[in-house]
Each structure stands twice: as structure tokens, then as C-alpha cells.
């Protein structure tokens, strides 16, 4: 495979050394063709790839605001429709903050319109770009700068919002979840999602070096561990049915403690909380098992 150096996303960007999100983006790009337009929300990806007058992007790419990438994509789609252009794909890229929180209303509007747009959420489980504040995706127990651990705090006391369920509630034909560290899976899901007509949603767990307080070389390992513990299974829904899951016949879960103890954001957790999180994993394993 000659095309690992991807002309859709050139080197020279300013992301952290070892960034899990950028690793995932590379895999997404391999799933696209040059006949694609990208609308990107504010966040690490946008900030680190477009320091004027330099851009890493090789595809037509636009950033407007933090919360409106989905509506911007709808506008792009309408303009293409008006031109009678039926081939060009429209892709949204946003972080978990732009997806779970500030952008959710506009995403719902886009999904409601039923437009043929693929939405990709790079889930760093916090607002990485602004210094690791909690988002709706921040998992229970994680310390962030707005949910620090302390005398009266175990870190975030909210559980992660279930974006997949929300996407499914909108009747999306293609909904999937995967993680950095599974590059071929990511690429394949992107390709598949693009064949579906109507809105599609892919969420990719993207370990963040300062956010998770991990070493530069650990992003992929953490992505894999999240999957292996059952905390972040790889899932794929078509027309609302779960058609594939990493929680399958061969699934032998790792204990969540392996995952938690490797990350600075969880290092304050006591046994009790770890048990609670193990329970969340166990529930996932029940819910998403596809045997």
C-alpha cells in the first residue's frame, strides 16, 4: 500500500506528538475519495491542521464555528444538489464537545432532514483543544480541569452520554463506533458508511495525550484497551440493528482497572469507583454482545 502518506491530510500539522485523534483521522482519510468536501468543527483537529497560511488538508475543507459543522454541511449538500452534483460526498468532522454538547441541536436538525452526510465524531472524551474540560462524553470518574478530583470530587460524576442511542433514535441507517488503534476497521467503516443513502454517524474513540495523561506512545494502546475491556466496544448498526460488535464469541474482557490505571485522569479512583466502572463495562458486555 503506497498511499499511506495521505495527500488528504499532509504532515506538518501541529497536533501533539502521538495524538490519538490524528492517528484516527489518517485512517478516516484512507476511506475517502478526492470527490469529498469536509466541514470541520472547532477543536484540536481544526486548530492543529490549518495554521494560516498553512493547511494540512488536501480536500476541500471548511471550518466555520464550534457548533455548526453539521448545518454547514447541510448547506454544502444543498449547493451540490442545486448543481445537480450527485457524486460528491459530504463529511462532517467534530470532536466529542462539538458533538455531544454544543453541536447536538444542529446535528439533530441535520439528521432530521435526512441528508446524505457522514458525520464523524473524534471522541477524546473531553474538550482537548481548550485544555481538557469535561464534555458530555467524559466518562464517570475522569478528572478534567472542570471536574477535577479533590476532597469533594471523584472527577466527573456524570456518566457518558449515549450518543449512539441518540443517533439511533433519529433513525439513522448507519451508526458505528470504533477506536483509534483499529485503522483498517475505521477505514472500512468510513467506506461502508459512504455507500448508505441518508445520514450516517461514526464515533471514534481518540485517546488524547494531555487529556488522558498518558505517554506519547500510548494512544493506540489505550484505544485498544478501551475496546478490550468492553468500555468502548466496536459496534456497527445498519437500519437500527446491531450487525457487528467486538463483544462476540471470542470476547474475553480485560478488567477495567488495567485501562484506568494506565491513565493519569483516572489515577485518583478508589476501588469502589473502579468497581462501579467495571459494572458499566459489564453492562455494555451484556447489552452489546453479538454472538
Amino acid at each position, binding site marked *: 500500500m503506497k498511499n499511506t*502518506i495521505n495527500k488528504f491530510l499532509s504532515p506538518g500539522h501541529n*497536533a501533539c506528538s502521538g495524538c490519538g485523534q*490524528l*492517528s484516527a483521522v489518517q485512517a478516516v482519510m484512507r476511506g475517502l475519495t478526492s470527490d469529498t468536501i469536509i466541514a470541520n468543527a472547532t477543536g484540536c483537529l481544526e486548530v492543529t491542521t490549518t495554521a494560516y*497560511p*498553512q493547511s*494540512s*488538508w488536501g480536500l476541500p475543507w471548511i471550518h466555520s464555528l464550534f457548533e455548526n459543522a453539521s448545518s454547514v454541511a447541510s448547506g454544502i449538500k444543498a449547493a451540490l444538489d442545486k448543481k445537480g452534483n450527485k457524486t460528491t460526498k459530504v463529511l462532517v468532522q467534530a470532536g466529542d464537545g462539538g458533538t455531544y454538547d454544543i453541536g447536538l441541536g444542529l446535528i439533530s436538525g441535520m439528521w432530521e432532514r435526512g441528508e446524505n452526510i457522514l458525520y464523524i465524531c473524534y471522541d477524546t472524551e473531553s474538550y482537548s483543544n481548550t485544555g481538557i474540560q469535561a464534555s458530555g462524553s467524559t466518562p464517570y470518574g475522569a478528572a478534567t480541569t472542570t471536574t477535577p478530583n479533590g476532597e469533594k470530587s471523584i472527577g466527573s460524576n456524570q456518566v457518558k452520554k449515549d450518543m449512539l442511542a441518540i443517533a439511533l433514535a433519529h433513525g439513522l441507517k448507519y451508526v458505528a463506533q470504533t477506536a483509534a488503534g483499529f485503522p483498517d476497521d475505521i477505514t472500512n467503516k468510513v467506506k461502508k458508511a459512504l455507500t448508505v443513502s441518508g445520514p450516517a454517524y461514526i464515533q471514534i474513540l481518540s485517546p488524547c495525550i494531555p487529556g488522558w495523561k498518558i505517554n506519547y*506512545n500510548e494512544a493506540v*494502546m489505550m484505544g485498544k484497551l478501551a475496546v478490550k475491556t468492553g468500555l468502548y466496544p466496536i459496534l456497527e448498526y445498519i437500519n437500527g440493528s446491531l450487525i457487528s460488535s467486538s463483544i462476540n464469541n471470542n470476547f474475553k474482557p480485560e478488567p477495567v482497572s488495567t485501562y484506568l490505571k494506565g491513565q493519569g485522569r483516572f489515577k485518583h479512583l478508589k476501588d469502589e469507583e473502579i468497581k462501579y466502572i467495571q459494572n458499566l463495562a459489564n453492562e455494555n458486555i451484556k447489552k452489546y454482545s453479538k454472538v
Partner: protein
Amino acid sequence: MKKLLTIKPNTSLKNKTGSWRTHRPITNQEKCIGCSLCAKLCPEGCIEMININNKLKPQTDYDYCKGCGLCAHECPVKVIDMKEDY
């Protein structure tokens, strides 16, 4: 009249992020099994699999490699070494 606000594609190639590196990945091409994993995972996208004697081998572009060590950590046969480099 309006200043051009758009940016030309792939212009970040001017930004040689190799200077950020404190460690340099050195790949043992002999032992490499050519699985491409390092190339697929590198956040910089700066590893290219090239044909060497009819085998795919990774070639790292040190102009951009930030030295994160992800490739080394993930190489299934552990043939990438991170060497101090500053």
C-alpha cells in the same frame, strides 16, 4: 479588495515538525515483516510503505516525524527503536 482567505492544499508540508522530536524511531528493515501497521497508525502520516526488493518496508520521513514512539510501541515484531535525538 478582498484579501485571499483560503489556504492552498497541503501547504503544511512547509512546517517541518521533525524539529519537535526528542527521540528518533529507527526501523530495523531486516526484521520488519512489512505489516504496514506503523504506517497506518502514525498520527503524522509520515511513514510510507515503499517497495524494497519486492517487499513493502516502512520509510519514515524525519522532516515530520515528531518522535512520539507510537510506531515503535505498536510494531508487532518490535523492530522500531526509539533513540535519543536532540
